[in-house]
């Protein structure tokens, strides 16, 4: 109990350290996340639009979920060596599956009657995508990004074993920072994860078309 109380004076005394580590943490989580979004969303949306690759999307999700982040990071130590690059590749690989499969499902599962009606009204394939599938699928696409974001922030803590920096450095170095430091950093990571999660909840609310607010029930995404 004293340790937990002691974590707060530690935060005050070591604010600059924690800020620096939190900055690193965000850097190594957000860059791979951004990369995964830039590749995963277009690919997933396109596959969903042409209704191909269901098997691929499902398999990638399953493997992504089962793949222990620790093992992935460790394997990359052997293949890439230590440092930030290793961590970022590992986090990219973790973020990619949920983003891709959610984007795929989001577009693929848009009611076929709706897209047929849109085509019937004379909309071209691309217009159907832009006017019907994307607006309706957007909440689910964001759900996928939200899942991936929480996962990367989470796993970035472990990436420290690959020498990537971040708050994991403090959490896993009781010798240097004491148990107070470990708990303080753990609290920071926890708050960071929750803030990121809430940010996407907010984004989800803003992105949902007024008529489909109920779709937000896609809620915690796994």
């Amino acid at each position, binding site marked *: 109990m004293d340790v937990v109380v002691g974590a707060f004076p530690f935060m005050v005394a070591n604010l600059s350290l924690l800020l620096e580590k939190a900055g690193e943490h965000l850097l190594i989580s957000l860059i791979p996340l951004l990369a995964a979004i830039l590749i995963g969303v277009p690919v997933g949306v396109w596959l969903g639009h042409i209704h191909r690759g269901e098997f691929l999307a499902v398999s990638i999700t399953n493997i992504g*979920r*089962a793949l222990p982040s620790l*093992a992935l990071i460790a394997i990359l130590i052997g293949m890439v060596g230590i440092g930030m690059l290793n961590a970022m590749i590992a986090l990219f690989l973790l973020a990619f599956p949920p983003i891709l499969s959610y984007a795929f499902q989001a577009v693929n599962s848009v009611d076929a009657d709706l897209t047929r009606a849109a085509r019937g009204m004379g909309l071209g394939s691309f217009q159907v995508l832009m006017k019907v599938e994307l607006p309706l699928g957007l909440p689910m696409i964001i759900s996928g990004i939200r899942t991936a974001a929480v996962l990367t922030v989470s*796993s970035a803590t472990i990436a420290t*074993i690959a020498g990537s920096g971040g708050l994991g450095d403090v959490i896993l170095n009781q010798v*240097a920072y004491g148990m107070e430091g470990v708990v303080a950093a753990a609290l920071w990571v926890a708050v960071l994860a*929750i803030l990121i999660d809430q940010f996407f909840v907010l984004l989800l609310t803003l992105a949902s078309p007024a008529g489909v607010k109920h779709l937000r029930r896609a*809620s915690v995404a796994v």
Partner: protein
Amino acid sequence: MSGFAPAGDPVIPDYGQASNCVIDNGVFCTDWFADQWSSVFWPPLVDHIYMVLIAVTIGFVVAFTAALIAYRKRWLAGPIGIAATFLYTLPPLALFQLLVPFTGLTLLTVEIALVCFTLVIIFQAVLAGLAAVPDDVKRAAVGMGLDTNQLMRRVELPLALPSIISGLRIATVLTVSVATIAAFVVDSGLGSPILKAVSSPFNTQFIAAGALAVLLAFVLDGLLVLLGRILTPWTRVRV
């Protein structure tokens, strides 16, 4: 708890006579894996299975009960859901470390954290399954004179089973993956051979332990699919 930063060059673990593959630190050395199976991999695998089964079982009991309560008292669904989501969002390693001051470097710490991760998934799956029971079926059941408990036992729960099983599958697979991180707290589970090999980046040990975890996840997932098929025969019949 420190010193995970790896040294520069691979340090080959001295497990007696080494093959060329081991000396070159190849991607996967089958001979070494076979040699070390019973000492390096089998015991952590067994520990890992126990760890996962205990966590999922407890998580299921807790989340299932909570979901039933939330289903009866709708206003509780929000608060319980938010609490569970909150626990789920916490990075596993952070949660482990936050528990250590209270429960120490023990298996208890690990199990508490693992249970926390299963809660939200199973809770939502049970609740979603119950909510998806068609209204006309419920109305017919109530109209025939089933009381609340009979409705739950005979109609709502059986019809929620497919959703409950799929929640259990996701929770199990995730727990297998997260349980590797338990190695930071206790020397147990498949994370432990990985952590031990980090300081001397030895590929075979990482890959073998990682692959075993993935394999275990798929096997448990398969077993749950099988269980689902046995429990829900009506979902497979179509004219």
